[in-house]
């Protein structure tokens, strides 16, 4: 077996193991069968371990042979022949390089850890199987996003991560609060996805191909050079920055971060503390040659990262629950990572991401036992933990401190700001249109035309005999 064939088999195993897991978890409920917790856990172990071993083997081969760029071609998912003037292909291509391999290994390690933790944490929970279906969607989405060799493939994984995130925030769906928060997360993700798709289309339009090679040069990451003009780089880069900001909860989209903590602790740990919050930064790192092509774009990236880091640091200090505090602490680190990317660094943000993801996973998994940990710590040192303020607190006068406290507690009024700026005018406009349509159909009918007006908000107690 040649080295190329070995790498191809290993690459397919990395992609195939989470795909098989999702297929299994998707098909079983369709057949009306509920798998046991033991079976679910075993399937996850097999999938994560096989994917991880294959990814490590690829890393080993790359290190041993000095190969820095291993493309895995799975062919065209869809192809329309190009004999004529127009053609289309959806190329399934994955790339193992110095950026994607560490991120894929990180995804497997953290998903495996959280999977093992969640099995115990959610033991006998009514939504146990539902959680792991979403988990499988997330794992596949992360692996596809990490290893994507074309922007369409990255979008595919990106969407899977977004859907699983929103559904997991609303995991405890018997209460309205998690559902409302899940909806909010979904809205932000859809905006980010739309920006991403428009950026992908623009890039496709400019370069004529969806391959990253065509966009950022043939060199293995991070050696590529963007093949588009600075002006185009600025346009595309801004769209990608919006997509990354939405996914990573950067300012002004940070409002969804504490809302996302409504989900079960394992999903909070893996999504908002560790992996998906870094996906935006990962995207920026992947397209770093595009950022490098435009100085104004880099300045905007640095400004946005700095703003997010400062906001996260301030907001995390006043949160009243540990998960929200950790979420804003994550935002601080993500902001710093984005600043590093904006400064043109490559390996430092990658190492920062990996280290931060591991630390934050540990912290979030320990979050439910925080008070016990505090007590153990105080017992060990023999006194209460110090609550002295920092030097910054001493430098700020009391009125400003009160304002800052209120600002941080209200999470920068970002949700209200976005609602006032976009949501309310949007809703007002369409409510007005709805009213005008009502008047028009009433006029044409010569009577009140809408029977739906008589549907009561709580009309679902009228169960009928469905025998």
């Amino acid at each position, binding site marked *: 077996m040649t080295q190329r064939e070995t790498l191809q088999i290993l690459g397919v195993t990395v992609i195939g193991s989470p795909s098989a897991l999702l297929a299994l978890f998707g098909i079983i409920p369709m057949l009306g069968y509920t798998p046991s917790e033991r079976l679910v856990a075993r399937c996850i172990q097999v999938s994560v371990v096989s994917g991880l071993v294959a990814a490590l083997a690829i890393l080993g081969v790359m290190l041993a042979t000095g190969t820095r760029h291993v493309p895995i071609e799975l062919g065209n998912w869809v192809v329309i022949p190009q004999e004529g003037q127009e053609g289309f292909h959806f190329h399934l291509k994955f790339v193992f390089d110095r950026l994607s391999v560490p991120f894929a290994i990180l995804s497997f390690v953290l998903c495996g850890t959280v999977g093992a933790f969640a099995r115990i944490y959610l033991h006998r929970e009514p939504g146990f199987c539902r959680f792991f279906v979403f988990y499988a969607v997330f794992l596949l989405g992360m692996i596809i996003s990490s290893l994507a060799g074309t922007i369409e493939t990255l979008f595919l994984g990106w969407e899977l991560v977004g859907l699983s995130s929103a559904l997991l925030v609303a995991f405890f769906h018997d209460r309205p609060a998690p559902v409302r928060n899940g909806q909010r997360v979904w809205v932000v993700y859809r905006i980010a996805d*739309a920006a991403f798709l428009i950026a992908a289309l623009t890039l496709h339009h400019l370069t004529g191909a969806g391959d990253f090679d065509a966009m950022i040069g043939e060199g293995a990451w991070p050696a590529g050079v963007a093949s588009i003009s600075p002006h185009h780089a600025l346009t595309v880069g801004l769209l990608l920055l919006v997509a990354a900001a939405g996914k990573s909860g950067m300012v002004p989209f940070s409002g969804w971060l504490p809302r996302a903590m409504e989900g079960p602790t394992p999903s909070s740990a893996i999504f908002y503390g560790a992996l998906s919050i870094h996906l935006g930064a990962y995207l920026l790192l992947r397209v770093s040659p595009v950022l490098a092509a435009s100085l104004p774009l880099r300045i905007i990236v640095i400004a946005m990262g700095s703003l997010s880091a400062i906001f996260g640091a301030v907001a995390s200090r006043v949160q009243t629950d540990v998960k929200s505090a950790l979420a804003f602490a994550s935002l601080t680190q993500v902001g710093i990572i984005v600043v590093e990317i904006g400064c043109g660094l490559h390996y430092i943000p990658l190492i920062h991401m990996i280290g931060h993801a591991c630390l934050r996973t540990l912290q979030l998994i320990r979050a439910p036992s925080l008070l016990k940990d505090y007590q153990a710590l105080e017992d060990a040192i023999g006194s209460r933990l110090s609550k002295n303020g920092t030097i910054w607190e001493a430098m700020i006068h009391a009125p400003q401190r009160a304002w800052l406290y209120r600002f941080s507690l209200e999470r920068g009024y970002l949700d209200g700001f976005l609602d006032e700026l976009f949501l309310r005018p949007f809703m007002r406009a369409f409510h007005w249109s709805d009213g005008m349509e009502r008047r028009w159909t009433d006029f044409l009918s010569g009577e009140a035309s809408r029977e739906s007006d008589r549907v009561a908000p709580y009309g*679902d107690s009228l*169960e009928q005999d*469905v025998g």
Partner: protein
Amino acid sequence: MMPELHYPWLECSVLIPLLGALWVGWIRDADRARRHCIVICCVTLSCATGEWIDFMRLGTFEAHDHWDLLHLVFHRDVFVIDELTAPLLPLGALLYLMTVLSTLRTKINRFSFGWTLVAESILLATLSCRSPWVVIALLSLATVPPWLELRARQRSTRVYVLHMGLFIVLLCSGQALLPDGASPENPPILAGGLIAAAVLLRSGVIPLHCWITDLFEKVTFGTALLFVMPMTGAYAVMRLLMPIAPNWGLQSIALFSLMTAVYAAGMALVQHESRRFFCYLFLSQASLVLVGLETATAIGLTGALCVWVSVSISMLGFGLTLRSVEARVGRLSLDSYHGLYSHIPALAALFLLTGLSSIGFPGTLGFIGAELLVEGAVGVYPVVGVLVVVAGALNGIAVMQAYFRLFTGTEHHASVSLAARWPEKVAVLLLSVLILGGGLWPQPGVQSRYHAAIEIITRRQGGFQPSSDHAAPPARDATVELRR
């Protein structure tokens, strides 16, 4: 000489539901009528599927029936299928079968099975015809069953009659004014404008869309679904408008359709009731099909034809799920949470799956179609592509909002079992297989729609007259050569 199918699939597809309607009309017991109707719909679907398979095996652009009885009477090929309509016939038959199959016993006294079969027969005949006047006659005839139901339910018919009357008048006058030799190079402005106005009205393009929301308010959900879901407005565009409209005309229509897609997506977000929400969501998706059709490029048309199929299947599943939930708990308000997930998890999953498929979520039937559509739209006007993406994003938000409102947010306490019945489970399984199967293995479907798109473009380029039933279009190989 036009190629011939091996069996009279087309005539059987049209006549079986028509005769079945007479048979079902005699049956007084509604439950028995429902069971007979299901069997008739199954047989019709088998014939339509047989037609599709037979046509694919012929490897031709068009074909007419074997033992064509209508040819003996009218001395012309009334029923002809081509690349465009071959898969639309089984799709139409599937829409009817799924709707009838998922009609619960609580609703069988309100839902007319006889008229449903008549409507199915008219739809399949429409899709099997190419002669403009016959298509116009059948499109006009198709407006009758919903009107009869409105009358039977003692609802105001004024909105419906005004719009459909205008539709028929515009269509007939446009076709009557159409000069000989009309083509995209020699476009008939007045006649083309009248036909365009008619098909836009039938497709529910703003500001002529209010009849659709009114229809959903006043007739049974099943009848409303079956009237709008086959997208006969888009079919009329392909048959009546595409052969004569110049590119600028099509792009003007695309602009209206695009506005409708965005507007309806926004309106779906502010609706208080599930039927109206569904109606706007469907309008938005159907308008995206029109946007793609009117780009008149191979990729855009392929995308539109793929989205046509995916939207039909996805929105059918979506609508049937809503209808099944309505059958259990009555008309559904979207102002409150209903928390039905724990009672009907299968329907909740289908609701989400079909909703995601309709917005082109990866791995579902709609994904590749949406990609092609956006790609084609960007090729014509980049801003069109951006607005298509915006409409898709708004629809995605609306779908998830409806899912959360209906299936989550509270604990629903039911005094009777709300679990899905076996016909519903069959419908859920079948639609899930189609959506996921078509999503994971899209190449055959895309290839078929691409051939249809090329055929349409070739006809436009060649000024092919659809009225000349016997005119032979170029062979498939020749078309490929033309493109080369």
